[in-house]
């Protein structure tokens, strides 16, 4: 019987994983909830298992997912990103059920998922970190500790929920007064959101760049990096645009950061693919942020510049193979940019456009272009999941060539029905700072003109709507 692997995810990442599984001549088993019944991932998979009406609850239901894998004779489970990907209980459940979890061990996921434990491991390994605290003590004692920390390191300071992640459970504090005010709120919010009211502090690095390193480790302890990525262009701590390699890093600094990442991964006993995230300040000092114990959305840019199929490698490593390449064989060539084309209205605070039907879908192609998506003409975007429609990744030899290619692809892209982030990216690729590679995490706040496109670019579509109406009715009823 052929080897079967369950893909415990949906949307574009499920398709990405299914492709790798099928390229390895294995069979992919997809799962889906009712709102995803028309999703393309279940058509591409070799088998598809309905796990419930959801929404979300069944994708998050460990028992149902394990049960689906076992009933369909799967030997391994790939969690993708989101949902159960960084839930140590899920990795543990797979291990217990005799299923290979494609990712690090449940212990590693647990340790690195807990911000305080993770910081302790990194501190012990001598990894540079932003000044911060352990979990603050309960009640007023914790507030006193916080004020003391602020005296030593100065504001602004981030108040973080220990169990938070993905940009959630974070609040910025500017002075003592705000600290007294926010501290109890942060605790009660953390309790409500994560069922754990632990919070800790971290000094804020002002306007840093977000630089991360893709690492891959096999079970023998051999750990290599696939170079850096810059994910500074974010909104509300959610990444929008990712590039590889990180721009404007000296070869020395780049190498130092990558070596630090390997050191961090080794300290954590990391296996399989992961990402070590750093903040880089304007003095080129870098600080460890966290290790993401999963395949990341933006893994595509690293694949483009290294030529290494990260998902294929993940599966092979999980199934017991060793890494087939050494660090000196990994070569970073050219540049790659990925933009997340979301069904969102950037001008309306990126409000999701779920529920709308994609009436026209025409995608670009050609040299250096990669699409990871799941939508098609006639597809109605479910309202209950995230709004990512397709990732557009382009590769180019030089930075300019890559930006030009991105512009061309965005111009060729036609998605009608929902509003998308495309017009916003069209502004982005023409922004002088972006073209120079000059951006940090404050980029969107300081480049508000990127949002000034609607009147201009959609003006013709509004008029086309009127023309369609005049055509349909045989006259302009507004002018009659």
């Amino acid at each position, binding site marked *: 019987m052929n080897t079967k692997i369950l893909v415990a995810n949906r949307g574009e990442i499920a398709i990405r994983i299914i492709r790798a599984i099928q390229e390895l001549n294995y069979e992919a088993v997809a799962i889906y909830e009712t709102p995803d019944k028309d999703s393309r991932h279940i058509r591409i998979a070799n088998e598809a298992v309905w796990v419930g009406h959801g929404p979300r609850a069944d994708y998050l239901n460990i028992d149902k997912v394990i049960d689906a894998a076992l009933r369909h004779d799967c030997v391994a489970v790939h969690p993708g990103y989101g949902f159960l990907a960084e839930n140590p209980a899920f990795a543990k459940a797979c291990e217990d059920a005799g299923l290979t979890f494609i990712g690090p061990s449940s212990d590693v996921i647990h340790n690195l998922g807990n911000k305080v434990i993770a910081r302790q491991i990194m501190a012990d390994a001598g990894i540079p970190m932003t000044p911060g605290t352990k979990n603050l003590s309960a009640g007023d004692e914790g507030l006193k500790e916080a004020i003391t920390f602020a005296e030593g390191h100065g504001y602004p300071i981030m108040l973080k929920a220990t169990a938070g992640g993905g940009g959630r459970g974070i609040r910025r504090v500017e002075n003592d007064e705000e600290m007294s005010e926010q501290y109890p709120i942060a605790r009660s919010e953390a309790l409500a959101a994560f069922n754990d009211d632990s919070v800790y502090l971290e000094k804020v690095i002002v306007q840093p760049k977000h630089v991360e390193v893709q690492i891959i480790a096999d079970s023998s302890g051999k750990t290599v990096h696939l170079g850096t990525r810059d994910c500074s262009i974010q909104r509300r701590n959610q990444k929008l645009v990712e590039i590889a390699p990180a721009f404007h890093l000296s070869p020395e600094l780049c190498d130092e950061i990558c070596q630090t990442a390997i050191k961090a991964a080794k300290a954590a006993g990391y296996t399989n693919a992961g990402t070590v995230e750093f903040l880089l300040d304007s003095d080129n000092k870098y600080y460890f942020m966290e290790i993401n114990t999963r395949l990341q959305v933006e893994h595509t840019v690293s694949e483009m510049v290294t030529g290494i199929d990260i998902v294929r490698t993940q599966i092979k490593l999980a199934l017991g193979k060793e890494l087939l390449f050494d660090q000196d064989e990994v070569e970073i060539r050219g540049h790659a940019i990925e933009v997340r084309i979301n069904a969102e209205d950037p001008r309306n605070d990126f409000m999701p456009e779920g529920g709308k039907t994609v*009436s*026209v879908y*025409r995608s670009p192609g050609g040299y250096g272009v990669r699409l990871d998506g799941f939508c098609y003409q006639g597809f109605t975007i479910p309202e209950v999941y995230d709004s990512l429609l397709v990732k557009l990744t382009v590769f180019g030899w030089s930075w300019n060539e890559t930006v030009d290619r991105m512009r061309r692809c965005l111009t060729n892209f*036609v998605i*009608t029905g929902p509003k998308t982030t495309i017009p916003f990216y069209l502004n982005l690729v023409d922004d002088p700072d972006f073209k120079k590679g000059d951006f940090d995490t404050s980029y969107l706040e300081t480049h508000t003109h990127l949002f000034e496109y609607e*009147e*201009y670019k*959609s*003006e*013709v*579509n*509004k*008029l*086309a*709507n*009127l*023309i*369609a*109406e*005049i*055509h*349909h*009715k*045989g*006259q*302009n009823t*507004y*002018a*009659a």
Partner: protein
Amino acid sequence: MKPITRHMSPSEVLKEVRNGDGYFITNTARDMSQSDYKNRILLHTDLMAAPYREDAGYFSLEITGGASVHVDILRKQVDPFLKLELLREKMPNTMFQTLCRGVNLFGYRPYPQNVIRFAVREFAKYVDVWRTFDFMNHIPNMQAVFEEVAKAGKINEPCICFSTGPEHTDEYYVSKVQEILDVTGDEIILCIKNHGGLGTPIRIGNLVNSIKQAYPDLVLHYHGHNTDGNDIGRITAAVLNGAEIVDAADHSFTGFYGPPPILSVIQTLKDYGKEAIGINEEAVIASSDAIRDERAHYAQFEAQIKGFLPTVQIHKLPGGAMGSSLEQAVKGGFLDKMPDILHKELPKVQKELGNWWSVTPGSQILWTTAVSNVMEGERYGNPSGDLKNLLLGKYGPFPFYQPDEWIYEKAFGKNWKETIEQEGGVEEIEDMDIEKERATLTERIGKTPTEQQLVTYLQHPNDAVEFFKFEEKFGQSYVLPPSIFLRQGGFELGETLIFKDHHGQQHMIEVGPAQEGGEGETNIYLNVDHHQRMFEFEAEQVTGTAAVATLSKEEIVDLAKIGDHRAPFAGNVCEISVEIGQEIEAGENIAILEAMKMQTPVISEIAGTVTVISTKIGQALKPGDRILKIDTGEEE
């Protein structure tokens, strides 16, 4: 001799006009559009002509005001302020002129003083010459406009409305001029507003002469219409007797009821030794050539009766109302009754109601009364709300004599004297709470309105909101030429539409196929800048009058008597005066319908409780459409 531009102060302009050897011309593009094309000439066409009109050296371009402000938002779907702003970009020097109806502003009934002042202040940012009139020549009705125009440093051009008949003597008009000068002072232009194109050349010549004799330094602007084909005769007489400025329009668009051709005026007066000051004849010709081809697309808005109407001397309908009156006759199916209405009833009604001036809103009152008198069979049997207001003196005092008592009795019943005593006289309209209106508008459009949007809203609340929604949905549609915007019968498959958008970007739209969808919806495919776009239109609901047999007048009255009130005529609901559950008496106002700019109340036939309201404000009703139900409670 300095060319006149908007950069000069009013007194500098007046000085140049007084010293000029010859006469000046105002291009009345707005009045041409209103009189001959139901106000539908699009901004697109005016923008095409703009550079040539700028070069032509006119005293001013009359391009806003009258009914155009309303039609801009109601039909042309263009912001009346944006229109002026865009024209100003292409015409940096030419003075823009408006026609303001005094207390009635650019609408059909009096506005509160603070609204008038606010509107004038906003428009005065673009408008240099303010021609202001009152249809009763009641000077106090224009006072607020005069004051705001003067404050804004713009030119006041008060009108004496002109008509014919035994009361309309030179002495009368000279005394009216004095009344105006007493209020405005001497630094104005006085307009002789001959909106009907009435009188002969010699009559106009005499009038101009009399005014000039009394006020030699007063600058006179003659405004006429070519309804009888003889306005150039009147213009010539006016200029020969000392009028300094006259009105005419671009010849490629001149029709029957609007202004005469500019070039013909120039050619005629040249042989009398009168020079058109500042005029560049080549540019005058070029303006006409630039827009000539556009005219075909406006044919659908030309009057139903072609040809001059010298009978205007009998019926006196103003040029600006000819098109819409004839259109109403066609739609109402009484075109055959026009000779009766125009030549017999209308002159009779005019005399009966006081022989004042047939111009907005008075012309609408005369017209609807005459139509109703002929169509209903009973004269003054169905007086409109506006006629009643006129009789009550709400628009101002009658200038010559009061209508006969029997007309009052028809309108208000046996106790009409009491009604007049209680309700009569010019009413001081309370100031509007503008901030409250601003908040309401903010709520209705979901964003903070600009001052200009607020001004538009204060004048025509429902139409303004509809327009703002249109703009939101369809963008700036003024960029579409009439061949697209006014197209009848849809486009050809494969037809290519090319236009520049509001930002100057050129676009191409290719018309693709239309497909029926599974649920009767239609999908229209357009290639927009080479990208295919699909536009979906839901299936039309097959209900309404097609399914329901049309009710006769008698049936509508019978239904009303059992509490089922239907629309007695076609019109828009502009007020619903009662609420569900309200107890009302027989004879109370329950709603107000508006047709042809006239508001007419719907009266309850029985007493009872309002149980159902089937319409809403702004809805267009056909005769027999439900308005509301009153339950007498007798059945229970």
